[in-house]
């Protein structure tokens, strides 16, 4: 069965069963590997992407249930033209191993789209489902504040 998906503005024809999670469609069928597999049970947040701007765990969204445009980490900025939130991550030198950071950034980007000035408590509430085993949480929080400030100025 062929499903049409729009990812980062590009249309893809996907020939996979409808119950394959979006995560594995992105990674194995389309080759967008920036979205990471960490747990497969929505317990770590590494696979977070946006569907019509809403943050979702792509390991829990079946291909057949996707209705909307998908944005992945590759779609919000590139090494030569980073999004403000990615710039903030660089400013604060957030990443260590970096494996969770695509999901962290996508979660934080969705937060800032809805709340341009989150306080620490609001950041904690939104981000508490995104695990980081290197312990970069303090720098993530600082980077979200910086990104919020930059976005408010823009």
């Amino acid at each position, binding site marked *: 069965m062929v499903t049409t998906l729009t990812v980062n503005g590009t249309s893809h024809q996907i020939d996979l069963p409808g119950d394959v999670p979006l995560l594995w469609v992105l990674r194995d069928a389309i080759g967008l590997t920036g979205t990471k597999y960490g747990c497969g049970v929505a317990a770590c947040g590494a696979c977070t992407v946006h569907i019509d701007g809403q943050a979702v765990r792509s390991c829990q969204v079946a291909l057949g249930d996707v209705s909307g445009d998908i944005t992945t980490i590759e779609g919000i900025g590139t090494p030569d033209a980073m999004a403000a939130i990615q710039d903030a991550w660089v400013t604060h030198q957030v990443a260590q191993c970096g494996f969770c950071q695509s999901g962290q950034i996508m979660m934080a980007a969705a937060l800032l789209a809805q709340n341009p000035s989150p306080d620490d408590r609001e950041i904690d509430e939104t981000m508490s489902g995104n695990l980081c085993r290197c312990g970069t*949480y303090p720098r993530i929080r600082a980077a979200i504040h910086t990104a919020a400030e930059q976005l408010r100025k823009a």
Partner: protein
Amino acid sequence: MSRIKTIARRTFLITSAAIVGGVAFGTYKYQQDAPNPLTAGKGEAALNPFVFIDQSGVTLIAPRAEMGQGVYTTWAALIAEELDVELADIRVLHGPPAKAYFNSAAMQDVLPGKGYDMSGFMHSLSQVIGGAGKFFDLQVTGGSTSMRDGFDRMRVAGATARETLKQAAAERLGVERASLSTKGGQVIAPDGTAITYSDLAEAAALIDPPKVTLRDPSQWRILGRTQPRVDMVAKVTGTAKYAIDTRVDGMRFATLRINPKLGGAMNSFDASEAEKMPGVDRVIDLGTGIAVVASNTWLAIQAAEAVEIDWGDAPYPPDTDGIFARIDKAFDSDANSAMRDDGDADTLPEGATLIEANYRAPFLAHATMEPMNAAAFYTGDALEVWAGNQSPTFTQAACAKAAGLENEAVRLHTPVMGGGFGRRVETDFSVYATRVAVAMKGIPVQVTWTREEDMRHDFYRSGALARFRGAVKDGKAVLMDGQISAARTTQQAVNRLAGMSPGGPDKGQVDGAFNQPYAIPNYRIRGYLADLEVPVGFWRSVSASFNGFFHDTFLDEMAHAAGRDPLEFRLELMREEHPASAGTLEAVREMSGWTGKTPDGVGRGVGYTYSFGTPVAQVIEVIDTADGIRINKAWIACDVGLALDPGNIEAQMIGGMIYGLSAACFGEITFYEGEVEQFNFPDYDVLRMHNTPVTEVRVLEANKYMGGVGEPGTPPAMPALGNALFDLTGTRARELPLSKTFDFVL
């Protein structure tokens, strides 16, 4: 034209050799008989390169793996400092497996000394003994050794390259080399003429590398200052490629299921249903489990779950109680080590108060964010493997053996790792991928483990038990006698890697306990090794991860028994013994405004551990809230001797502490009917943003030798938290995880 020019410096030699369009600089250590990683072309000499300069610029070949600890950046900084290039202009690649890249610092701990008291003589001796690592093919990233290993070698390589390029420019311009300077990747003449390194690279290959002297630290412009990580942009744009992201034409996707009764056989399996499932290519018999190859990883996972398997039993007691009974039983046998035995630890000093306590620490999983995986492509006479690994020479050899090939027929790629923490020293995930690839000859296959498979097939941090007795008199510690029992971590891990078990006292097993700088007159630490076939391995800070908790918690108990402030009690015992350690305690005392008193609803604890060459003190503050106990604040002071990148050291200290606090609060692997009972993060919780403390770090440089930074932040976190909880509640928890005793904010 065949040529290698060398200069000698200390124990290693710098060599240079011509490459296409440029020059390479590298080192040999001691004897030059280590097989070379680069195949020498016709008429070319091969060497083990650290720096390439060619028409595309400067490339660093980093023989250490990047697993998040920042090694690429700091190794690049060592080169850039002497070579006068900007850090951002250096490309960093991971080196191929090679004996000449062996880790000279990893073997330094074979000496019986305690580390903190190394004399100059012993320091030199341990550097020499470091050469023994070569015989174990020890190209390992671990033991927090990378900077100690690379500090001289990388700078000399950079300086040698710089002076050789200057000589090439001098010959071209007809001036003296001494009249030239270097900046921004160019040689600059007195008249302002600038020649790029790339332009000089081919000529430099024809020149004998001149002798060099290293710059005085006062001249450093990069080292000693926080640098932007060279891997940061890739990691925040989703463009960093981990092994799990390997994609090559025609690739198929696989997963595996190995016997959850670890080390047990597979009696039989029925894959008839699985083979009919969508996208499935094949089910492969791996002897102790199966792999499923499919068009998509998720389809492979579904099919693997549909295979019916009859598992054989595990070779260890089937449940947690039975396993700990084995660990306890080891106390009845002779001690494996008594690495510290000062004074008379058998006799209670007259008039002293006796204190006794037993402790227990659980088995722990590594739970790296990137689950175990590897990709492999087998053609019949060659094998290509992509594996995020901390031990490339071992990995290459293990894959070669599994494929029935010579080592040279295996090309191993080591991409950045989504966390290592010691798990990726092991070769199992690379070997499984190789075996699947051999069965799928001619088709590249990626083998991704599910999180459940990863958590249930780890080489765990061993569970451990401790029995401590001590005595205080007149407010001072006069006796400490500690016994620690755990599985044979070093023997198991080295045997898996090198096919041989080191005998004799296992110093690593008592690290974090025997080598603490306290002047206690009667002081003995003995290690016991349990006979236990549960797979155990290196876990961030290895045995210091439990010894730090045992030793420092007991000190805290002694301080309270002596009626003393626990921070002052420790400080008084270590001030003469190791001033740098005392400095870390004084620093956290000042940073936290430590008074020894806390208001109701607030508890504070101090923890201290010396491990991997670095003393670390931490103060942790906990508060009572309506939702449970919150870890509110933390202060860390470490003394690394020389801080090459303070910002990265801060990140490692905080990260190491959080790794330790996650384990201290929640971490526990248990067994039932031979199987690990934890499957995924919901069963093996870790700290998250909302329950991580606000933390302040101070990096000191008073210690005589450069210490590690990746691991030493982990051990003191566990006792510091337990001691804070005692201050808050009056309850002394002697067993981890602390969630068994206390309710934390979840």
